[in-house]
């Protein structure tokens, strides 16, 4: 069974997709993820998700999904000053 692995590298950051692996069940998937994706001190938290449970957008829908956002510059948070102490935004 295929699992997708998400790793949070440190507190305050989001889990980021790290890759995928095979495991017989969730507990083994979590341990395999620890061994395969955090052996160089990459993480403080791991999520594993059955790959079959992920609903993904289709490349065929790319135009209607994403192109309309391309020219909406007013949606970007670039029209005000960002305090210096705000990071990870």
């Amino acid at each position, binding site marked *: 069974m295929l699992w997708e692995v998400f790793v949070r590298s440190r507190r305050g950051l989001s889990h980021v997709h790290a890759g995928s692996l095979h495991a017989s069940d969730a507990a083994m998937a979590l341990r395999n993820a620890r061994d*395969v994706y955090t052996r160089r001190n990459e993480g403080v938290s791991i999520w594993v998700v059955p790959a079959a449970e992920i609903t993904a957008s289709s490349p065929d829908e790319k135009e209607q999904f994403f192109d309309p956002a391309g020219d909406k510059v007013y949606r970007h948070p670039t029209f005000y000053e960002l305090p210096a102490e705000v990071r990870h935004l």
Partner: protein
Amino acid sequence: MSLAGYVLGLADDALVLAQRTSEWTARAPTLEEDVALANIALDLLGQARYLLTYAGAEEGAGRDEDALAYRRPSSEFRNVHLVELPNGDFGRTIARLLVFSAYRYELLTRLADSADPTLAAVAAKGVKEVAYHRDHAAQWTVRLGAGTTESRRRMGAGLADVWPYTPELFTEESAALVAAGVAVDPVSLSEPWLAFVSGVLTSAGLVVPDVAAAPGGGRRGVHTDAMGPLLDELQSLHRAHPGAVW
């Protein structure tokens, strides 16, 4: 027994099992397990390096970790027989990892309170590693034991293969070092060890094997036939290129 001798036993258990476990590299049942076993081997090798260095310093004869790992004959190795046994199949490998890491977990947990600050520090670092090794072996034991007829048969056979070598883990060594609060009395580890292992076996639908104890003697430098070939491989590079470094 001297402190150096005691530390050498702790070091050699880790070194020899690191060597055995690394034999799985590129041959494990799955890619994920290949990495897991390599990680475990490297953890044990790391423990061995600290302990060999310390044993060499305590001995005071100018031997460093490389001299102790690569230039000792079998008769000077102080590891238990359990760690030198050939890997066998995956079931036996997991059975050995289960009984050894459960033993070492109990040992390092107590050694972290040693009156010897170096041993206490190495143990405190190592216990977190060994806790993971123990968990890894326990997870696999349950899955193999409660898996298919074949996996259950092999897990049971592996357990029966390694079980005779477990009494050696709990044989009294140095009363003086124990009394001084430096060493852990191995006899005291037997009960908590059996409680953990039998709990895992119950979850796996397996039972504690009813088999006679092997003679032991590893701590005295008496080893099984498997030890010679293991050392031949471990020491081959150093023999071909004395003093070689990375």
